[in-house]
């Protein structure tokens, strides 16, 4: 499998073999990500970080990944202070930065921006989120977390929250369907997973059920993946409060939970997970954030050709 020079744009182009190779590589990176082992794998390589909208955690996790492998990071800086504010096209920015770096991480508010960037770039583009579009490194780190903290094979997972607009949840489900997961969808009526996605998942071998309370599923699953519900989705604030309270994990809810249950969340959380849950053995979300580092290390090493698998 050759990853050298490849763009990482969307999960839809990833086969199960490709995902497995990336996750295995990430596992080898873990001691370096933890600072227990030093590496000069990407010495002399430069990663350009182009964030056209703020996403501090994703940016920091890419930067950490690059530094941990001995590489350097070139930051675009604030968009207001740069030529982009003067109306330069993304295509031009990419063609310029192409000459400065060995790979580009791009975060952009418009959907399809990473695909466009790839058309104008001779160096690998890593999509760190384009509008409501793809965010493949998030999906890969979610899968990695599940692999490390639970199991990918024969997984029973519940996803709760905004399942209608959350595209990262959609691509996570698609990826999990490659592993034959049993998926329980928990959401308010207004924010249900789109029908066509459910039918796609079933066609791809996943078992899907829908319910509207966490209590129904929490003792049955290996993993529960919580997502944030945005207040703006509800015209009536009272309606939001009702929903927000129903889809919340508290220590009380976990009284009868199996010890193996893992709780994930892409963070930041608002109040979907009570802070009382943080100290329980189930809490997995801060580890999940850390796992972004070895996964991004693996991707960088692969697309820059420092590792071949």
């Amino acid at each position, binding site marked *: 499998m050759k990853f050298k020079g490849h763009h990482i744009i*969307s999960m*839809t182009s990833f086969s199960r073999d490709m995902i497995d190779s990336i996750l295995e590589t990430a596992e080898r990176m873990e001691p370096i990500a933890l600072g227990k082992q030093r590496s000069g794998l990407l010495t002399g390589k430069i990663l350009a970080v182009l964030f056209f909208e703020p996403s501090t955690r994703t940016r920091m996790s890419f930067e950490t990944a690059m530094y941990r492998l001995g590489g350097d990071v070139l930051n675009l800086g604030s968009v207001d202070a740069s030529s982009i504010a003067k109306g330069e*096209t*993304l*295509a031009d920015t990419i063609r310029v930065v192409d000459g400065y770096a060995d790979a580009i991480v791009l975060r*952009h*508010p*418009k*959907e*399809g*921006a990473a*695909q*466009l960037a790839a*058309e104008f770039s001779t160096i690998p583009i890593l999509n760190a989120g*384009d*509008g*409501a*579009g*793809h965010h493949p490194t998030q999906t890969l780190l979610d899968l990695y977390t599940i692999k490390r903290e639970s199991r990918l094979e024969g997984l029973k997972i519940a996803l709760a929250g905004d399942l209608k607009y959350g595209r990262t949840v959609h691509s996570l489900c698609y990826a999990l369907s490659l592993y034959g997961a049993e998926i329980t969808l928990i959401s308010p009526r207004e924010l249900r997973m789109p029908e066509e996605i459910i039918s796609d998942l079933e066609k791809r071998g996943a078992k899907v059920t829908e319910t509207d309370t966490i209590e129904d599923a929490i003792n049955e699953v290996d993993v529960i993946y919580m997502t944030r519900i945005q207040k703006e989705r509800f015209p009536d604030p009272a309606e939001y409060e009702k929903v927000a309270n129903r889809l919340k994990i508290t220590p009380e809810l976990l009284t009868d939970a199996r010890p193996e249950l893992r709780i994930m969340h892409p963070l930041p959380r608002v109040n979907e997970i009570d802070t009382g849950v943080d100290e329980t053995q189930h809490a997995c979300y801060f580890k999940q954030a850390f796992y972004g580092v070895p996964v991004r290390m693996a991707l960088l090493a692969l697309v820059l050709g420092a590792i071949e698998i």
Partner: protein
Amino acid sequence: MNEEQELRVKRIENGTVIDHINAGQALNVLKILGIPDSSQGVVSVLLNSPGKFGIKDVVKIENRELNVREVDKIALIAPNATINIIRNFNVSQKKKVHIPTFVEGVVRCVNPNCISNSNEPVTSKFDVSVEESLRLRCTYCGRSISEDIAKHLL
């Protein structure tokens, strides 16, 4: 076309007859061809004409043949259309439109937040699939168009 219908619309000496257009789509076909602006010859339009498979529209254009891009666009809104090239009152060539698997610069993406709708130096690109119905999927943002395709033609 049978004799009686032939009488309704005059036969043309040279030009193109687009037959088997889905009923209701003839005016969109004219729009695709830039008619009347781009055509000097007589253009005849037959609406709701009875055909072998129900009603259909027919468009006849004098002294004009179509280019590939025009045929691609017609295929998207009238997948059953046939293009007949008329020379000297005879059908010199008859072919079915062929639905392309990929179209570029033909349709505008419906997603206002799609990068292809900004001032970037790219044209829109869509993958075309035919299952129960025709579906165009934007290469950039992934959004699909399956209804009223004519409305989104560039």
